[in-house]
């Protein structure tokens, strides 16, 4: 006779993550936050230059329908040494595209540890928490932490001026968009 086990082990909640490099440091991002991965070259013609001194981590923007998507340099965002970026993550549910050096691998995390209260500055917005993979501690980025509402407003204002100037320029040259 067999008995059913009284306690069933609860299924471990896992999350698919992408490990990526920025200035020789490894970060993780949830796969579900990444809509597209593109090479920097593939966006060369589509990106517009934007120079807003208040947001130095953004130098380019993309037009996606009626939306402006801002390209955030991850190394500048995290205060790291500038490095040659090769890939762009277009993030879901935000107007952010993230410039990164490269992808390390895709993997699964089973545990996300909250950032200790001892970390009390911008990192609390930057990260969802920390995870341990192969005896390494990896920060898991918060996809909503790359640009604040205020920064988006500033960038939208700068982008509006830029788009108007481009339209005026095109009209002058007799080019129909």
């Amino acid at each position, binding site marked *: 006779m067999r008995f059913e086990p009284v306690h069933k082990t609860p299924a471990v909640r896992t999350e698919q993550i992408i490990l990526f490099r920025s200035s020789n*440091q490894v*970060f993780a991002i949830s796969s579900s936050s990444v809509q597209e991965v593109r090479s920097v070259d593939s966006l060369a013609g589509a990106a517009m230059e934007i120079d807003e001194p208040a947001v130095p981590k953004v130098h380019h923007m993309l037009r996606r329908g009626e939306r402006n998507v801002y390209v955030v340099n991850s190394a500048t965002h*995290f*205060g*790291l040494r500038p490095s040659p970026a090769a890939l762009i993550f277009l993030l879901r549910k935000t107007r952010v595209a993230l410039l990164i050096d490269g992808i390390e691998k895709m993997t699964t995390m089973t545990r996300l*540890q909250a950032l*200790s*209260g*001892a*970390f*009390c*500055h*911008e*990192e609390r917005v*930057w990260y969802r928490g*920390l995870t*341990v993979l192969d*005896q*390494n*501690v*990896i*920060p898991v980025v918060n996809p909503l932490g790359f640009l604040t509402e205020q920064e988006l407003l500033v960038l939208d204002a700068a982008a509006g001026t830029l788009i108007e100037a481009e339209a005026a320029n095109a009209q002058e040259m007799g080019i129909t968009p």
Partner: protein
Amino acid sequence: MSWTEQYDARSCVLLRLGDRRFALAADQVSELVAPSRLFRFAHRTPEIDGVILRRGRVVPVCDVAEKLIGKRLSSRRFYLISTRRLGATSDWIALPVSGDCELIQADLTPAGPSDSPHVAAWLSHDGEVIEVLNLNALTPGMEPQNSANGNPVLAEAQA
């Protein structure tokens, strides 16, 4: 009334930072461990050097030597893993120390109004007057708590 207002014997851990000794209430100390791999990642809290892994937990490392003796430790012999409590929450923090630690029983004298916020109390040991540290005031991310007379107290000791 906090325990720092009493003059009774308490267990304390003596720790060494450079040439000086400080004390921490023993019930704030989890363990003393040999230095292990320090993991660093981008952040903006200058007091935190990085994190270590201990018993599956990620523990931030905070070098308090600069605040207490005016310079960072050149050699780290151990990490003293301590518990910080604020209300219902608690977390661990690893303090690098430069020598052996010692568990003692000592009579504590409460800190006075002119003492620095990081001083929770004083004790006398081997002819030396030693500061008992207020971790909440010394480490980032926790507001120092004050006793009725305005002096900081150890968080877990509040009635």
